């Protein structure tokens, strides 16, 4: 039975890889990415509300009762800081969603996608940098061991932000080339 489940998982993974990478239709890949971003956005919004909307009844959906009774996040300043940068990340994701929507509707090179990618990049860089300082640099100054700290998420957001900046510049460069091409008679 375990072997069957493993085989099924491998097959699903291969189908997934085929759909995402081996498919030659470029717009289809962007559509896939768009769906993923929407899913990620929804998950993050629910997760954010779960943290912010502190109601025992609501929290019982996610935690067991004992945890709910001990849960008092608003007393912690770090919690509010975390939530603020979490919100920035969610808004950044929303801009990525809008940018991808424009890619699908108006084609690869359009000015709206450029401006939205830049906004998302800015939010991700701010969120990633501040989170990095709060979660890594501050604890290090307080004498924590570097290897105890989990820096993966913050770095990932930071790298994603810088990557989006590069992408936005590429799109802008493409916009200029397209405009010149369109105005060549």
């Amino acid at each position, binding site marked *: 039975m375990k072997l069957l489940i493993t085989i099924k998982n491998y097959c699903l993974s291969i189908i997934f890889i085929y759909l995402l990478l081996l498919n030659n239709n470029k717009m289809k890949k962007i559509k896939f990415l768009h769906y993923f971003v929407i899913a990620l956005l929804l998950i993050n919004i629910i997760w954010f509300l779960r943290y912010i909307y502190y109601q025992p009844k609501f929290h019982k959906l996610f935690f067991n009762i004992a945890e709910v009774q001990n849960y008092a996040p608003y007393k912690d300043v770090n919690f509010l800081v975390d939530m603020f940068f979490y919100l920035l990340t969610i808004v950044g994701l929303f801009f990525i969603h809008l940018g991808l929507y424009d890619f699908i509707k108006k084609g690869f090179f359009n000015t709206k996608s450029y401006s939205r990618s830049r906004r998302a990049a800015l939010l991700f860089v701010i969120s990633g940098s501040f989170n990095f300082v709060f979660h890594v640099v501050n604890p290090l100054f307080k004498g924590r061991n570097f290897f105890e700290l989990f820096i993966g998420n913050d770095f990932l957001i930071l790298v994603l932000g810088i990557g989006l900046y590069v992408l936005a510049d590429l799109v802008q460069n493409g916009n200029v080339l397209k405009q010149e091409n369109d105005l*060549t*008679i």
Partner: protein
Amino acid sequence: MPIVVNLDLMLVKRDMKSKELAQIIGITTANLSILKSGKAKAVRFSTLEAICEALDCQPADILEYVED
């Protein structure tokens, strides 16, 4: 831009309409309008050749350099 397109002048001299020229050289009237208004970023040699052939003129009759 210091390059001026004198296509209008040549069209009047040859007594030809923009629409006719666009049809002869095989471009849209919108693109011809872009060329006439000086908004074009570049002109292909093939387009220039077709215009010269249609208007029976030289490239210098259509394009002129004027200092800013």
